[in-house]
């Protein structure tokens, strides 16, 4: 597992992994879209708009997952002095921001027919909006410091401080009485979703994860190359 912390090992692994990941994710996307548009039933209440879920939920999960992994890498980088963590943070922050944006926009499009408004000031929505702003702040911080050593450590500290928001996003539907529905899949007991809807959701989730990893590999490789040219 050394390729997770070592840039040169990562480069080797990335060369092997990138193309299969991309092809697999495109295939999964095709399969998942087929399932979600034609092979899954309409909801008895929400009708056809339930299909927005197959984009909305995976992107929301990935937005949270990306931030969690960034937090882990920040701890690794600060505590064990592994510089790959800084490379990872710089490279992956825009991906997380895009996933959060997809989640917000698709949720907004889902909210208009179901709740009647594009936006409600509800705990889940607000905390996700704050997550998006934190992602943007990380990107802007990466752009606005001139000294690289200070920049990457300050950004790592900011990520650690901002990770306070993660449990708030996850548990906001349980702690407050919100309009957003509580967790139906990622809860400890049996998921309360029908298997016919579960299948496309799982396929789409894996497609999102794989495309996320593929883009992350590209961005991390770019970051490693730019750092090498910066040092030499």
């Amino acid at each position: 597992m050394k390729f997770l912390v070592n840039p040169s090992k990562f480069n080797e692994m990335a060369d092997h992994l990138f193309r299969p990941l991309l092809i697999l994710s495109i295939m999964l996307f095709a399969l998942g879209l087929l399932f979600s548009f034609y092979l899954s039933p309409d909801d008895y209440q929400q009708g056809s708009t339930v299909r927005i879920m197959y984009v909305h939920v995976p992107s929301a999960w990935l937005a949270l997952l990306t931030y969690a992994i960034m937090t882990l890498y920040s701890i690794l980088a600060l505590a064990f002095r592994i510089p790959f963590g800084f490379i990872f943070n710089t490279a992956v922050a825009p991906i997380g921001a895009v996933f959060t944006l997809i989640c917000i926009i698709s949720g907004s499009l889902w909210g208009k027919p179901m709740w009647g408004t594009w936006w409600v000031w509800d705990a889940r929505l607000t905390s996700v909006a704050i997550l998006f702003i934190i992602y943007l702040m990380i990107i802007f911080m990466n752009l606005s410091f001139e000294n690289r050593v200070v920049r990457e450590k300050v950004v790592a500290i900011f990520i650690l401080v901002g990770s306070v928001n993660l449990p708030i996003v996850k548990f906001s539907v349980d702690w407050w009485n919100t309009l957003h529905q509580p967790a139906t899949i990622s809860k400890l007991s049996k998921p309360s979703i029908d298997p016919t809807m579960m299948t496309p959701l799982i396929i789409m989730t894996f497609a999102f994860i794989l495309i996320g990893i593929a883009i992350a590999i590209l961005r991390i490789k770019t970051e490693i190359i730019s750092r090498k040219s910066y040092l030499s």
Partner: protein
Amino acid sequence: MKFLKKIIFFYYREYKLNLSGIQDILTNIIFFFVSIFIFIFSIGPDKETISFIGVGIIWTLLLLSSTLSLRKFYQEDFENGNLFIMHLNGFSFGFIAILKTFSHFLFVQVPFLLSIPIACILLNIANDKLFYLFASFSIGSLILSCLGSISSSMNLMNQRNFLLGSVVVMIFSVPVVIFSVGIINMEESFNSLINILFGILLIVFAINPWASGMCLKLSLENS
């Protein structure tokens, strides 16, 4: 004893510095009142509307005007080398952060605390709400000072984007504003909400020396 003397001298120095630059603090307060005027002019002078949203206005403007002075939290001491001298005199970076946080609370936030009653008169807020406003702001302003310490130490080396520090404070102060406005508007749940505020204060107070101390150390090493 020697250490205590050093701390007393630290605060004496802060007092002298703030006294010579008292126009900055007064300008902050004037900013606060001028923005209240602007708010009232833009909403319209209807008494009931104003007293209904008054608490929210006061909290928003207190937050905005206390983030205005963040720039001089560490920056002057950092640029003229006083931070490094303090560190050489036996203060660790985390301890400097704690001392500075209290000094910011004393010299920047307490004047706002004193100007709240006048704002309440202007915004037509009932007298019995004044106590809740004081209670929420005296805890909330300590939280804001801690957050300000973190964000301004992060942005010491940031020469391009000065507004970033204020935005960091404003993001993390969202829960503070929610709970402290909740205290004033829902007086029956005063105890539970003020306990939550205390909890946030303790969390921020624990994070502050670690995060700001580390950022100060980084900036001093690489400047």
